[in-house]
């Protein structure tokens, strides 16, 4: 990858921190023999110890007990395990509540349940992307098996009032799952204060490796596994542990925990610079709540321009940004973002949306350069489209 491309798509994935890589290399290079964590011998014990250290680190990030954390292969798997696992553990209850702006890992899991006879209520959001609290409260029923609302949205970065939502579910005795994949490492998360039942995390969104996720499962919460076999992770997630990846996750969450405030201040300043610079152009509008949003997320609709052209133009100018979300961008054929539609945006507005997400290592100069490129790209593309219109 050419070094001169500025990466501003941290919501899709983050680069591995050098210190994380170092922690992983201990388990990847042949110099130190690490075995299968299920093996009793010394190399197995060393691997087991690594996994347990990482588990303690993940637990500390969300203020949980190590025994409440289980490792998965992705945030998606953690979300699936929570939604389908909590539902399966209460066979008498056949109703599920989610928000209209969940990540596909939650919406598709809910749709899967729907296909097997569950009723799913999707609670709407306001034009700022924040969930309708009273609508959520009304949606909860005695036969609700699980409710799920994300901590922060992957596309528009809006932070949901999870503490209140969790409180409502707690009072009603309904298991509540939170997808904290985008929030972890950017916002303080404390499960001792927020009564969630389960909470999903992903390593590669906080400078850890791809291929590792975790699910916090509150002591006493009942869950059925999705993947069965050797009985690893207390039987809730079978399969040989990805030891190097888990070690990397552990190192990444340790850094995220220690540097949380510093990262947040740094990212917020850059984010606000992007927002004010970009929205000073005519017809550029910020999507999502201006304050209740992730420290690193800027989501813009650019009037009169197709997002695809804009992001490719920006790539050519040396800036990597996202359109919509990474998960949606690879889908064959164009589909307007369901998140933006739920926020009341038109299809045209949805197709003109770009996501700029800064990171802990993004510099002020890079942001300045980006704003310059963005202005150039928007101006040029608008001229071209005016020209095309005039020609036709």
């Amino acid at each position: 990858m050419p070094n001169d491309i500025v990466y501003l798509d941290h919501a899709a994935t983050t680069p591995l921190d050098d210190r994380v890589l170092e922690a992983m290399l201990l388990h990847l290079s042949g110099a130190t023999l690490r075995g299968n964590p299920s093996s009793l011998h010394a190399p197995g014990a060393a691997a087991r110890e690594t996994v347990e250290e990482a588990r303690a680190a993940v637990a500390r990030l969300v203020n949980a007990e190590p025994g409440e954390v289980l490792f998965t292969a992705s945030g998606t798997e953690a979300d699936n395990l929570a939604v389908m696992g909590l539902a399966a553990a209460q066979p008498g209850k056949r109703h599920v509540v989610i928000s209209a702006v969940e990540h596909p890992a939650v919406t598709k899991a809910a749709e899967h349940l729907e296909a097997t006879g569950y009723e799913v209520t999707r609670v709407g959001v306001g034009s700022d992307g924040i969930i309708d609290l009273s609508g959520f409260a009304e949606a909860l029923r005695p036969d609700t098996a699980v409710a799920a609302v994300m901590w922060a949205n992957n596309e528009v970065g809006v932070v949901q009032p999870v503490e209140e939502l969790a409180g409502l579910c707690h009072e009603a005795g309904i298991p509540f799952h939170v997808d904290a994949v985008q929030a972890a490492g950017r916002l303080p998360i404390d499960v001792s204060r927020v009564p969630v039942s389960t909470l999903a995390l992903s390593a590669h969104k906080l400078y850890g490796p791809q291929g590792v996720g975790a699910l916090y499962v509150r002591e006493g919460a009942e869950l059925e596994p999705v993947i069965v076999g050797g009985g690893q992770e207390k039987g809730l997630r079978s399969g040989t542990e990805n030891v190097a990846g888990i070690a990397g996750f552990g190192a990444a969450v340790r850094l995220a925990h220690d540097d949380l405030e510093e990262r947040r201040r740094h990212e917020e300043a850059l984010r606000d610079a992007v927002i004010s610079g970009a929205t000073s152009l005519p017809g550029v509008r910020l999507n999502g709540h201006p304050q209740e949003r992730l420290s690193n997320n800027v989501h813009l609709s650019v009037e009169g321009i197709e997002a695809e052209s804009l992001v490719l133009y920006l790539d050519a100018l040396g800036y990597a940004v996202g359109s919509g979300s990474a998960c949606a961008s690879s889908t064959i054929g164009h589909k307007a973002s369901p998140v933006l539609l739920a926020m009341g945006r038109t299809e045209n507005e949805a197709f003109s949306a770009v996501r700029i997400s800064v990171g802990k290592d993004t510099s002020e100069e890079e942001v300045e350069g980006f704003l310059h490129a963005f202005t150039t790209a928007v101006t040029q593309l608008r001229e071209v489209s005016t020209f095309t219109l005039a020609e036709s």
Partner: protein
Amino acid sequence: MSIYLDNNATTPLDERVLEAMLPYLKEDFGNPASTTHAFGWTAAAAVDLAREELADSIGASPEEILFTSGATESDNTALAGSLRPGEHLVTAATEHEAIVETARRLELAGVRVTVLPVDGHGLVAPDALREAIRPETALVSMMLANNETGTINPVYELAEISHESGVPLHTDAAQALGKIPVNVEDLGADLMSLSAHKCYGPKGVGALYVRRRPMPGVRWLQPEPLLHGGGQKRGLRSGTLNVPGIVGFGRAAALSAVALPEEAPRILTLRERLLDLLRTGIPALRLNGHPEKRLPGTLNVSFPGIDVGDLLGALPDVAASAGSACASLDAEPSRVLSAMGLLADETSAAVRFSLGRFTTLEEVERAAALIVRVVEEITGFRLGEPSRA
């Protein structure tokens, strides 16, 4: 440093595999699902190349490869994604836990399951399969090589029988890949589970081979996804791809395919040397598994009258295993050896030594000497000398 004779539990990462992975752990860190910039394109291209490498190594086409987080997930997907209540599954008593547990769950959900017995060597009898297949049989799942004994099933014959009735066959080839030739056409497999960390690749990556075009007269299976989400990879398996892991798997499979003709006989020679040395020192030693139809690196032996916990506990410098790695944290007698008709005291005396690419003759000889000495100490008996007890 301990002598690692537990390559069936997991293998060390080959340095060349690590080298292939490193760029994707460093500057090429993109998400392959990002279609809007070069970071994403580079990552997607790396995944495509790894898919080709893995497909080539098993005689498949790239689009027949689905990457997963490991063979356990592949096994779960193959069975749970294919079978519906009322349908019938035929499997065998010595399958990996990932198959056994999935079959057990499916049975609770209304799938009929027949578990075939094995003979004293751990082999499934083709005739038993023929008799077990019924009109509602929708899948046969038979492992290629057993993780505990290394016994190699006649998968091609089993597939032929299965296909005669139009029933597709799944094989768990996690232990076989890189150790013996694994080719989907030669085996006649319709679905196949694979694992990276059993062939010098990274942990946390596996694959499911899914035959793209049905064989004539055989029911076509496209397992439904276990995970639902971003719809990556043709909607079959959601979740951001583990790019460095997948790159490592591709390289590990390619390297193993090239190394196999030289490596398999070399490892076999070392294993036979280990067996000779152990037999000479411990005449009562008993071999478990098939004498010939066995993975070249696997040696499962019973030490009659000896508690394996005591034996392995007295051998801190030899990393071997009592049964499979998955089962070693609980003290149950081996399900696999019991199914082969071994009595409880024989199964509790069983140790699996599994040799690999990096095992040396010196290590084998040193390990054998240590093992023989410890057995002598435990039994208080030295061959050719009067008992010291």
